[in-house]
């Protein structure tokens, strides 16, 4: 039972302000820029690939080329330097850049020429293609909604991977397994806390406490990742509301 009043909210509840990723991606230091872009690419390449495949109706091979081409341009043309956070959110800016690229994709020779100069990114297109097959059939969402949903899927997926690693490193693998059971696996919700406790050999109260810990950590990681991938407080607030349904001041 909570019967005391604390001085202020837990400082871990929301990540501190830091715009490291966007700033680093614009850094004159090539190594720093490269690291930031790799992080950005890790969150965005799947949404970009799926968006090109489904929204632009490109086949597997062409979508692969265009995805590689897009990120090559991001690196080569310093597209992020032109990004103005006061005019659009980063996610929308990237999607519009993808639209521009695809609309000009008839110039295949130019793409071939650029591709020759740029090292191709080691992106796992086969798994992304497999994910596409698991998507619901033709939902009536617009391009912005589709791209946002795929970005959320990518960001949450990365956050889940990081949560797994962090839980294992802290000896809290069971905490993660419970989150996996209740929030990721289909059908996990049908288990009562008592049944889950028996399955893992712990008390039902421990199930709720472990689950609360994992969910709290998941929330923290998502907000941290999101904070690093947005370019302003306003964008962070809007993205957090879109992704988590929470309003952030």
């Amino acid at each position, binding site marked *: *039972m*909570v*019967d*005391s*009043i*604390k*001085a*202020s*909210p*837990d*400082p*871990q*509840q*929301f990540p501190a302000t830091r715009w490291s990723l966007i700033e680093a991606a614009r850094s004159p230091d090539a190594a720093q820029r490269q690291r930031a872009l790799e992080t950005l690419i890790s969150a965005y390449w*799947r949404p970009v690939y799926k968006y090109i495949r489904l929204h632009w109706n490109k086949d597997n091979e062409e979508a692969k080329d265009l995805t590689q081409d897009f990120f090559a341009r991001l690196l080569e043309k310093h597209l992020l330097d032109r990004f103005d956070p006061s005019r659009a959110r980063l996610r929308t800016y990237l999607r519009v850049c993808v639209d521009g690229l695809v609309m000009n994709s008839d110039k295949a020779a130019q793409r071939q020429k650029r591709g020759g100069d740029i090292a191709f990114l080691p992106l796992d297109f086969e*798994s992304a293609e*497999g*994910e596409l097959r*698991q*998507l*619901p059939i033709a939902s009536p969402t617009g391009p912005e909604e589709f791209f946002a*949903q795929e970005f*959320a*899927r*990518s960001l*949450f*997926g*990365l956050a*889940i*991977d990081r949560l*797994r690693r962090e839980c294992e490193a802290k000896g809290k693998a069971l905490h993660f397994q419970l*989150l996996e059971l*209740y*929030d*990721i*696996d*289909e059908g996990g*919700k049908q288990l009562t806390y008592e049944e889950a406790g028996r399955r893992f050999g712990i008390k039902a109260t421990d199930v*709720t*406490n472990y*689950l*609360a*810990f994992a*969910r*709290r950590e*998941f*929330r923290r990681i*998502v907000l941290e990742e999101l904070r690093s991938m947005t370019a302003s407080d306003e964008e962070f607030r809007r993205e957090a509301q879109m*992704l*988590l*349904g*929470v*309003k*952030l*001041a």
Partner: protein
Amino acid sequence: MTWLSDSALERLRAAAEAPDLGGTRYQLVSKLGQGGMGGVFQVEDQILERQVALKVLSIADPEGTLSARLLQEARIIARLEHPGIVPVHDAGVLPDGRPYYTMKLIQGQRLDAHVVSVTTLTDRLRLFLRICDPVAFAHAHGVLHRDLKPSNVMVGPFGEVLVMDWGLSKLLHDPQRHEKASVAGDNPLMEAPADRTAHGTVLGTPGYMAPEQAEANALIDQRADIYSLGAILQFLLAGAAPFPRALDAIRKQAMSISPGSRYQTVLQLAADIQHFLDGAAVSAYPEGPLTRIWRWVGRNRAWILLLLVYIVVRALLIFFRPR
């Protein structure tokens, strides 16, 4: 990377947003809604075995200002013990660091949804009077609501009317404040400043907010709530138009641009509505002699009818009397 289905995404969204109730007496049941600064959840109090509503801050609050406002909201509601104001049970901080308070779970309809089932003008005005009651009570205790609107009024299954969401409420005066602040010391969550709009932030809902509320740093008083009540009256009368001039005059006076031209208390506004319901003169509508006579006739229809019948019968008796 872990593949997440659409349903897993939704579950994770809900899980990340849900309050961390681990180690508390509450167990999450469902989400009820999202307010300006906090989410409201239905939870089960496992000790008392009852369902209650839990409001939790869902906004980043690095300076603790919003936490203090949520706690102030809980304290204000707690001091307003009135059947038209939802009672607070408990307040504190959850394990995830977010402040919360629990209150009675109201199972009912918001006024904007309920109003369609109230078809007569008289019933709508009686409903309006029940909204005025808790607001007048709050004013009598030095509390302004500052965000009165149909979606902040609940009508329960037995017709009970509750004014909800006191998140923007303000203490007009708080004689105990100095003493409390000194007890709270440097703890920002214990501190409950009287005015949370010190930085000139505009708080309220357009359409229902008094004009002076839109002015940064403007001093407001109970007449701002009276404007909002006028807007609620207008909402309740929508569809009933054309409604009587006297009623329109009441609405106009409640919604006067200048606070000095409005009713000065909720009781005055409620009294005018009651007078209208009783067929009496209302202070907002000066009547000419003809209007006054016509209203008098309307109010005394039964007596006048009886008198007319009596006169006609007497006349007939005189006319047909054997000579």
